[in-house]
């Protein structure tokens, strides 16, 4: 078990947008590593690149609304020894420029970090066009790519710093809205590792992004019914920590995956790929059910489309009945 904040289910839990952690990570990297450069497509403030741009104007490049060029510029700069962090909304990068990410970045194994902000349905009122629900699928399918889906702002900061140390392409998925800040500076983070955030024996919940907190909440509520869930933080979607996942599945005998992404091809699919090969157990998938999103408040959408703690609780009951 890892260290989290003490009063996990306090009504007054501190909240922060996950993207804010990226901005803080960039400021630390700016100081530590002069090769780190930032590129952005006319979304500098909202992707939280603004502080870096002000502090290191010589290492910040405004690309304009041109995400395909963004990916190519990043590849060219990486070829010359820089560590470019290319940022936009996830629907545009890696959404619009996927071919450039595939060929110029991944096939060439260029050291580019792709930061997709405003991912998930929790973007809210902007509607389906701006709700990236496919980005994990299209990034994790690419050879050479590492994929991180941080659960809160502190973890996003750690993921950003870790990404700079990895030699090769990395995708980091960020969310716009404030979500509970429940990990601490001491909570461990390492590429390729999953972490047990709560121990249990009846069901494993393998979650990523804001759904990790919802999973903890679901586990807490289910405990009152006598169901003890083990909650895994699958922040490193690729490479995935097969050992931790398989160990947990062996212990609990069933799995619920939870993410703010299409069920097809996302974290749940990655979990199923590992388990079906190594230790097949019943699995239920919490995520977007092959549908586009819509306008609404983040919490309304999360609840309507079944990606909140209530949905996770339902999936846990169902998967246990299938054991």
């Amino acid at each position, binding site marked *: 078990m890892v260290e989290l904040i003490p009063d996990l289910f306090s009504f007054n839990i501190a909240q922060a947008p996950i993207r804010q952690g990226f901005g803080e990570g960039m400021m630390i990297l700016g100081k530590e590593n002069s090769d780190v450069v930032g590129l952005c497509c006319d979304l500098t403030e909202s992707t939280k690149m603004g502080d870096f741009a002000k502090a290191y104007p010589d290492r910040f490049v405004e690309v304009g609304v041109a995400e395909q060029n963004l990916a190519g510029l990043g*590849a060219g700069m990486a*070829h010359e020894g820089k560590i470019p962090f290319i940022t936009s909304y996830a629907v545009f990068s890696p959404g619009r420029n996927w071919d450039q990410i595939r060929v*110029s970045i991944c096939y060439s194994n260029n050291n580019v970090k792709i930061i997709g902000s405003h991912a998930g349905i929790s973007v809210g009122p902007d509607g389906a066009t701006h709700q990236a629900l496919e980005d994990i699928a299209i990034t994790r399918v690419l050879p050479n790519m590492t994929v991180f889906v941080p659960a809160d702002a502190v973890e996003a900061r750690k993921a950003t710093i870790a990404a700079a140390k990895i030699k090769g392409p990395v995708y980091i998925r960020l969310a716009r809205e404030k979500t509970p800040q429940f990990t601490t500076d001491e909570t461990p983070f390492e590429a390729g590792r999953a972490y047990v955030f709560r121990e249990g024996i009846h069901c494993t919940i393998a979650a990523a992004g804001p759904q990790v907190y919802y999973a903890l909440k679901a586990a807490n509520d289910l405990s009152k019914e006598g169901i003890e869930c083990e909650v895994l933080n699958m922040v490193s979607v690729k490479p995935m920590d097969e050992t931790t996942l398989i160990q947990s599945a062996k212990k609990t005998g069933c799995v619920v995956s939870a993410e703010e992404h299409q069920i097809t091809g996302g974290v749940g699919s990655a979990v199923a790929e590992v388990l079906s090969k190594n230790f097949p157990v019943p699995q239920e998938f919490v995520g977007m059910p092959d549908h586009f999103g819509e306008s609404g408040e983040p919490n309304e959408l999360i609840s309507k489309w079944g990606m909140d703690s209530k949905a996770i609780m339902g999936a846990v009951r169902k998967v246990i009945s299938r054991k």
Partner: protein
Amino acid sequence: MEYSIRDLEAKANEIRQDIVKMLVTAGSGHSAGPLGMADVFTALYFGNVLNYDSKNPTLWNRDRFILSNGHICPVWYATLAHAGFFPHSELASLRKLGTRLQGHPHHCVLPGSENTSGPLGQGISQAVGMAYVGLKMKKEPWRVYCVVGDGELDEGQVWEAFMFAGKNKLRNLTVLVDRNNIQIDGFTEDVMPMEPLGAKWESFGWHVLEVDGHNIKQIIDACNEAKAISEKPTVIICHTIPGKGIDFMEYKYEWHGVPPNKEQAREALKELRTLGGKIRSEHE
């Protein structure tokens, strides 16, 4: 090594012969573009335009050459072999299992390359990224050269890259356009009209030059002029004949993406060796 223009023309002819041999051996690949660009590639690699050391292909101050329209790679591979980046005999492995000469160039395995290309529009963005680092961040003396196709200009990404290079006044960047007027579906002006082409770059803040893409001296002179332009990037529109040097291929868009068969290759090689019947071939 200093070559006379005559030597360079002979080198371009050898490269054309290699292209025909590579394509007929591979049994697939592109003919028209590579043949049309043999003079430009000869000028770049043997006309003292590019600074490179084939025995040390990652030398820090080398000029960066980026091929953006990767499908014309047979001309690049033949040129790189002649320049000593890898053995000439390796040309026969084009498109074969295990080769370093992939159907479209792959940077991670190809000596003398800076980028992977094939999907159009991607090389130019990388070239611009490299030029930005060289000029603005590292302030190093090397230049960036990028070849793009004219059909490739249909891609929106290239204009994103041109706009960015113009804004940032990347004077260390020279783009050479293969203006051969053909693409897969037909003549460029039928598929997607792009004239006036030079005016487009001028409006994007570029220095524009136009040359006969088969006049090696003109190509070298234009590249040297580009080096002297100190406030903006340069584009050299190279007017070329697709399939140049082989009568039955010249000007025909049908030869964009197909290789010659054995009979056609024999005929093509004979025409190249005899310079279109002007001299007797020693192979006859």
